């Protein structure tokens, strides 16, 4: 006879689930609307999704006050963990998603936006990503990872081009492999410590101590987990899918993929590698170091030779991911603060760049390259304002002061210096110099070449798109004023979470 399990509802602390529940109910709501009346315009769904994201954001923002007074909140059988990292990551992800979903309101009509399911999937994905960051339980992380990934694959395929099917299939197979790696790595850690919660694992390992056999197991687990994250984040040498998938997706979705899901993976990586590095196994640090340096350098070199702007931005986002992975390697509070600061600034710069690509997107079926560099030739002559905007985002991505990403780079490099990684700091600096070449290349095409053909750069523009781009541009320029409060807020959240 089983004993009755008595759990008071209050102890569940169900409000830790509110943000995700809002997103999920938003998705279900959209599906219900479609059941009742089909054929509604995409703008309606976009706004519904936006409203639910706003509610979601509100629920997350609510936790800032709670976190600052009582510290990290656990809930739902202690699998949920709302600490500073979770809150920060959710804020950045939701704000970025709100801006990216607006990119659906284009002048031209695209296949995927005809389906309300697209927007439902979008919200499911956000919920999955939120679960990923708001937990230190590897099983819940896995569930969140899979929810978000499985929602993302069809979204790519819904673009209804041959390239998109290829991209979705490629992403799916790679994602499945990564999920397998993740599960295997987590399994080894569970076998070693008897827990799936990172905090408990660390305590258990600290209690038993590490001998040679457990060290080998930890290294194997790290290899698998690192490979899983490297797939998700597109780190070299597990990056090969990234440019293809970006090229196959719409610019709007590619931009989204380069920012939001990666941040969720970074947060899990911070939690996990903080623990793994604290075991004191030297090989873990060496592996991470190698991956960081390889990612930054190789992707930069590949980006140099790209002929398609979207592929180039794909490689560039790999390189940025490598940069930020360096923060995970360094692992100090300074570095983790830099990670969030960098990613928040990067989100706006990349949003702007991809939105500009999206604005120039022509509706042509099955062309090999949608965004060749030549497309931007002489843009300053034909649409000067758009050219200036694009140049602004490129300079920002290149880290030219005083535009947004410079401050992130500055802080990240300084975290490498204070963490004792001077060589890494130099490698980062030199990589920024290499990266400048391919960003400047677009500027060269736009400002120094003659226009070819009759390109309409604003073929896809709408007031909403222009507003999004304007917001991103404003942020890129005025970031110098935003950096100080942002940095203090992030530092407080990260420090109080104990990272």
């Amino acid at each position, binding site marked *: 006879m089983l004993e009755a399990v008595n759990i008071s509802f209050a102890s569940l602390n169900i409000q830790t689930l509110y943000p995700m529940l809002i997103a999920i109910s938003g998705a279900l709501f959209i599906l219900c609307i479609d059941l009742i009346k089909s054929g509604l315009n995409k703008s309606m769904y976009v706004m519904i999704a936006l409203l639910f994201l706003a509610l979601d954001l509100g629920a997350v923002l609510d936790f800032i006050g709670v976190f600052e007074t009582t510290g990290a909140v656990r809930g739902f059988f202690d699998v949920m963990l709302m600490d500073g990292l979770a809150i920060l990551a959710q804020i950045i992800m939701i704000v970025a998603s709100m801006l990216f979903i607006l990119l659906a309101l284009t002048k031209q009509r695209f296949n995927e936006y005809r389906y309300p399911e697209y927007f439902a999937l979008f919200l499911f994905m956000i919920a999955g990503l939120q679960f990923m960051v708001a937990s230190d339980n590897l099983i819940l992380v896995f569930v969140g990872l899979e929810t978000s990934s499985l929602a993302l694959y069809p979204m790519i395929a819904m673009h209804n081009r041959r390239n998109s099917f290829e991209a979705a299939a490629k992403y799916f197979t790679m994602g499945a492999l990564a999920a397998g790696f993740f599960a295997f790595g987590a399994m080894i850690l569970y076998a070693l410590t008897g827990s799936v919660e990172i905090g408990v694992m660390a305590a258990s390992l600290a209690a038993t101590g590490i001998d040679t056999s457990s060290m080998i197991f930890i290294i194997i687990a790290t290899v698998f987990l690192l490979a899983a994250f490297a797939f998700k984040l597109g780190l070299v040498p597990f990056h090969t899918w990234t440019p293809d998938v970006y090229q196959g997706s719409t610019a709007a979705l590619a931009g989204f993929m380069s920012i939001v899901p990666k941040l969720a993976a970074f947060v899990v990586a911070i939690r996990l590698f903080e623990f793994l590095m604290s075991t004191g196994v030297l090989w873990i640090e060496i592996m991470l170091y190698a991956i960081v340096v390889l990612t930054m350098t190789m992707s930069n070199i590949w980006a140099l030779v790209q002929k398609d702007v979207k592929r180039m931005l794909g490689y560039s986002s790999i390189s940025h991911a490598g940069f930020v992975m360096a923060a995970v390697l360094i692992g100090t509070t300074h570095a983790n603060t830099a990670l969030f600061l960098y990613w928040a600034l990067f989100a706006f710069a990349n949003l702007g760049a991809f939105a500009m690509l999206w604005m120039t997107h022509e509706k042509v079926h099955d062309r090999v390259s949608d965004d060749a560099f030549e497309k931007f030739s002489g843009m*300053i002559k034909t649409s000067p304002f758009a050219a200036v905007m694009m140049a602004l985002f490129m*300079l920002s991505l290149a880290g*030219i*002061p*005083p535009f947004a990403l*410079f*401050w992130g780079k*500055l*802080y990240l*490099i*300084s975290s490498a*210096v*204070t963490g004792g990684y*001077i060589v890494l*700091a*130099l490698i980062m*600096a*030199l990589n*920024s*110099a290499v990266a*400048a*070449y391919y960003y*400047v*290349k677009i*500027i*060269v095409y736009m*400002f*120094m*070449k003659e226009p070819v053909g009759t390109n309409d750069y604003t073929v896809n523009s709408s007031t909403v798109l222009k507003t999004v781009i304007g917001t991103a541009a404003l942020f890129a320029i005025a970031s*110098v004023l935003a*950096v*100080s409060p942002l*940095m*203090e807020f992030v*530092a407080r959240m990260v420090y109080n979470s104990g990272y």
Partner: protein
Amino acid sequence: MIDHILSILIFFPLVAGVLGFMVNKDSFRAYGIAVAGIEFLLSLWLWYAFDNSNGGFQFVEMAALVPAFGISYQLGIDGISLFIIIMSTLVTFIGIASLTETRNVKNMIITLLVLEMTMVGVFAAMDAILFYVFWELSLVPMLYLIGAWGGPKRVYASIKFFLYTFTGSLVMLVGMIFMAYLYQQATGQWSFSFTEWYRVVLPMNYQLWLFAAFFLGFAIKVPMFPFHTWLPYAHGQAPTIGSVILAAVLLKMGTYGFVRLSLPLFPDASVFFIPLVVVLALIMIVYTAMVAYAQEDIKQVVAYSSVSHMGVIILGTFALNIEGVSGSVFLMIGHGIVSGALFLLVGVIYDRRHTKMMNEFGGLASVMPRYATIFGIMMMASVGLPLTINFVGEFLSLLGIYKVSMMYALVGGLAIIVGAIYMLAAYKKVFFGNVTKRENENLPDVNRTELYALIPLTIIAIWLGVYPKPVLDPIDRSVRENVLNIMYQKVNTEMGTPEARALISDPYAIKETITAAAPEAKKHAAVAHHTPEAR
């Protein structure tokens, strides 16, 4: 208003440039000239309001930007930066006034105004990050200037320029962050402020590494041998105005950086690196002078001669004594005026013939007498004829380096003679002899606009050559106070190396020994401070 004059001076061109988008294309030249003129007058007012008897920083502005990380908006000028700022605004003003470009004049002038903002910003910044922001930002307008209005290989030249400088300065950025980190280790607080950094006495091994990091950034900008390869391309492809600004102002950022940062922050490392830096500077002087002699293109002659003279500036700076450093700062101003004028003069002939090859000319002195006269004066100023502006700077720089080593001064002095050879040879090829080409027979002489642009520069070149005191005195005072005195204080702590102690003398002691009447006092001072004479 006088409290914020530096902010006004920095951001006035930017605001004017942004507002300029609304100005009609046809009236844009006048708008540009007006804005640059106002900016120049503002900088003259700065000089008027400047307290000549004070060697420290003046017009200091301070506002925290990122307090947690020690970044602040801190501005201030002393005698070193004051005249470079005035020279920048003057050269920009004259450059815009004498603009002959017809394509996209509006975009060009707006670019020039943004560039002017970054130039004034670099020289007025007293916070390393602010300095770096303006330093890097100056690359973008210059990239556009060369890339959009340049010659056939303009894209290659502009990207080469951009990447070279960007790489060097990123290494410098790591150095700056490390310097701030060391400051944080010492005091518990982050700071990027120059005045705060000046207080830090660093151990020798840190000094060496940091000096190397800063050196890379500055040396590429100067450009020192072997990092000079971007410059001939940039000059060769850039439009006239681009070359003028590049040679007159942008290169000075590098030498200014040495004086403002490398010397006072890393005095022992500066002394340690004297042999290396001086040898590089000598190679730069001699080698580029020889290269200049071999050029067919008159603009390249001017470009290489400009690099060669930058070497003399480095030579003076690393003499690490009052004559050398003051002389090199003065030479920066002289070089700005003279090389700016020479590039303008090359532009004049290029506008008429659309070629810069010297064998296309010959006998121009009889066709264009006024042009030949002005060119002659400027060329003499360039080779350092006494009573012209460069003579003062070159003489002082060489005097300074002579006190360090006679050999250095000898080689450097010889190079100046080589400089005279190639300049005179080029002058002879272009201006003397018979008019060989028919196209040259009816070339119009300099017109009124060109004359208005060139005459002021000529007057300055002669005026400051004859009577450099009003400029040299404030420079002298600030070099003593903000460079040499800081170095002297630092090398005389326990961390200072004996070599540095032997070389760097008390900047205030020399003056006292001269004015003191009693022989005992003089002897005492000489023994106490190990002046080079005493050795």
